[in-house]
């Protein structure tokens, strides 16, 4: 009797665990299936016409502007910070402090970034609700992931390569400039993609910093407000339910979903590539 019940658990536990995994995969496929009903809305007339004509051109271009600016701000800062943490002061007190700050920054809810960005960038610095404030707020959010990824990439570079460079008489800076940085390029790119992925779905942080839903046309300067896919979907669902046909709202959601999937796949491939590349070195 005892033996039988034991063999029953022995069989049922893995099945239960498998069912849970299956449940998660089912939820994922169901979301894909649900959003695929927006597929027929994805016509050039919908994608490339202004929101005034029932299209989504402005949100798409606005999303791109937001990514580009925020990445341009965070990529150099994050990379240099990681270089300091790994190459200049690997075990200093300052490094530990920065480490703790990055950990906590990664855990701050995005709505807090939103209200902070509004008070600091929009009001105190007087930028107003605009693309530039959105960039800065987003850059703050991306900082942890960017720094972390480059740090990981730098740590992966074998020590003997750096030592070889130093042994040849190169200075610390020359070593970093000509040996460490080129080897870290895939890591920096991964970091950029990952941190864009982190903010690609962000709505709460740009709610008060970068977007107006009354805005018309594309932003001409960084001091104009913008529209993004996430924000447009949020407004369409909550405040203007009848503005687009349901099919088109699904189309918008699908575009956002595909963007997320694409960014994550690129990051995934990059990371796999980095790993293989390291083995080869």
């Amino acid at each position, binding site marked *: 009797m005892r033996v039988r019940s034991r063999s029953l658990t022995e069989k049922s536990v893995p099945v239960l665990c498998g069912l849970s995994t299956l449940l998660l995969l089912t939820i994922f496929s169901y979301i894909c299936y649900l959003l695929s009903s927006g597929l027929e809305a994805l016509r050039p007339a919908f994608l490339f016409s202004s929101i005034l004509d029932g299209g989504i051109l402005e949100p798409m271009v606005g999303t791109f502007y937001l990514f580009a600016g925020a990445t341009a701000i965070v990529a150099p800062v994050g990379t240099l910070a990681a270089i300091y943490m790994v190459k*200049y002061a690997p075990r200093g007190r300052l490094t530990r402090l*920065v480490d703790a700050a990055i950990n906590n920054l990664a855990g701050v809810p*995005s709505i*807090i970034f939103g209200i902070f960005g509004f008070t600091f960038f929009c009001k105190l610095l007087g930028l107003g609700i605009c693309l530039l404030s959105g960039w800065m707020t987003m850059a703050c959010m991306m900082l942890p992931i960017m720094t972390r990824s480059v740090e990981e990439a730098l740590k992966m570079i074998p020590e003997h390569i750096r030592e070889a460079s130093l042994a040849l008489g190169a200075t610390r800076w020359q070593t970093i400039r000509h040996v460490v940085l080129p080897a870290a390029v895939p890591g920096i790119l991964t970091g950029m993609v990952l941190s864009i*992925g982190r903010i690609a779905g962000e*709505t709460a942080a740009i709610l008060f910093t970068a977007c107006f839903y009354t805005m018309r046309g594309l932003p001409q300067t960084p001091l104009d407000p913008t529209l993004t896919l996430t924000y447009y979907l949020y407004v369409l669902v909550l405040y203007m339910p009848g503005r687009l046909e349901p099919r088109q709202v699904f189309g918008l959601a699908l575009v956002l979903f595909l963007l997320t999937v694409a960014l994550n796949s690129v990051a995934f491939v990059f990371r796999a590539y980095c790993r293989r590349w390291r083995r080869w070195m």
Partner: protein
Amino acid sequence: MRQIRRLLRRKLPEWAEAVTMLCALNSIAVLSLIVLFVAWEALPALLGWTGVSLTFENKWSVEHEKCGLYVLLVSSLMASMGALAMAIPVGVAAAIFLAEVIPGGLREAVRPLIELLGAIPSVLYGFVGLKVVVPTVQRLFNLYYGQTALTASIVLAVMIVPTIVSLSSEIISAVPVEYREASLALGATKWQTVRHIVLPTAMPGIVASAILAFGRAMGETVAVVMVAGTSTELARPFWDFLQPIYPMTAAIAMGFGEAEVGGAAYHVYFAIGAILLAFAFTVNLVASLLLRKAPTRVRL
């Protein structure tokens, strides 16, 4: 121009350390700025200087100067706890499956999919929740309104499950193989080994993943705004999950835009932000303390 370039070439190596150090200090600066600003703007509301005082009564209506934190706090806790109750069993089971059962090749295929589930934008979750979960809950329980605490919990559960799965499975895989071999050599079966050796060793890490998931659920905004409803007063006691709620993040997202800068309502929203921030830091601290006991070094 050439002079500047020559200067740069000569000076850059000397400045490099200082410049990189400044960039590293930047993250400390950003974090301190956030903490300082939120605390500074929250202070008037917390100390009652604005004339609108925060209380714990069961009524939230900033326009009528009634700021009972009970509604928001209890709503946030209801949604997150409900989500955890659903996400922990499923997430831990899936983590065990990924780490212990499934062969390596298949695992590398399934894991990215589950991680992708965690990367889906929260506004999309809100949208899907509104289209699917809200009507289902409404029909199932025969309610007048489908936006309830239960709906929010379900949507949040799906959003936080990937956090639990990826961290827990990583930690379960990291339990040293010698432990398992010792147990198997003593005649224990595979599942006895998992139950009595692997899980207890990985437990601090699993708990940490659940705590991090809790933090994520508390801070989640947009999806919650769309599916939790807006309730100025919790009509029924907190164990009734079939009532609309109004979590802290939703209150900020809905009300902050209309609040006049420097007005009483503005400071009240910052006070809620300060509470959220305190929650986030506590969650981070506890999780990182627990992760120190994990069999592998995992970074948050």
